[in-house]
């Protein structure tokens, strides 16, 4: 799975955001704010990956346990699904 093409990650007002960018239209109304963790996961998901690879990367990067990491990854993935950002 990976994040669909057609988004750019940039910064607005000191917040990291992802903005949907179509062929001709940039949609600021669909902008999503990424906290540090989400931004980290977002970058990993620019190429095809799976949950295990994400989990491994998060555990390497953050001071957390496996259960918490999985819970947060699942929440992030669900958020992406809800917004139709995910390609599975």
């Amino acid at each position, binding site marked *: 799975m990976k994040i669909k093409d057609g988004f750019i990650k940039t910064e607005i007002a000191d917040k990291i955001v992802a903005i949907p960018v179509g062929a001709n239209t940039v*949609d*600021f109304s669909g902008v999503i704010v990424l906290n540090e*963790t989400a931004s980290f996961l977002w970058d990993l998901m620019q190429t095809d990956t799976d949950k295990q690879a994400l989990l491994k990367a998060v555990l390497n990067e953050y001071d957390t346990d496996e259960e*918490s990491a999985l819970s947060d990854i699942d929440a992030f993935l669900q958020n992406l699904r809800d917004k139709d950002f995910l390609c599975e």
Partner: protein
Amino acid sequence: MRINKKYEALPFSMQEIGPLIKDFISKEKQVAITVTGNSMSPFLKDKRDKAVLSPITRTPQKDDVVLYLRDNGTYVLHRIFKVKENEYIMLGDAQVYLEKGITDRHIIAVATAFERKGKQLNRNNSLYICYIKLWRFLYPFRLLKTKGVNFLKRTFKN
């Protein structure tokens, strides 16, 4: 580092996204934004409605809604009330006091379509055009009402 859970979609103020909008418009992209503030009410309302901004392809005209950058650095989305030889006179739909001194160099983009209460409409929509005409007709009465209210406030304050 600890994991942080919150990520959400938030509307940003025009001041925050203005420079990015300007950049995308300069690259010939259209930009869709959620309206912030109520200066264009009743047509466009804060966080409810959207505008699609397009690069300028013709000279802005009376009644166009345009995004412009004031000399003080403020990004504004208002309607052109009047076009004079060397300037545009601007007025938000909710406002009564005219803004003068806006020129072509201030204008960044023109709104070519809107989403109002969830419904799409472009600037050629006949009902929208009727609204513009009606709102323009009502302008002198709105101005008079505001001046009257301000007069009464000043009078009874003393």
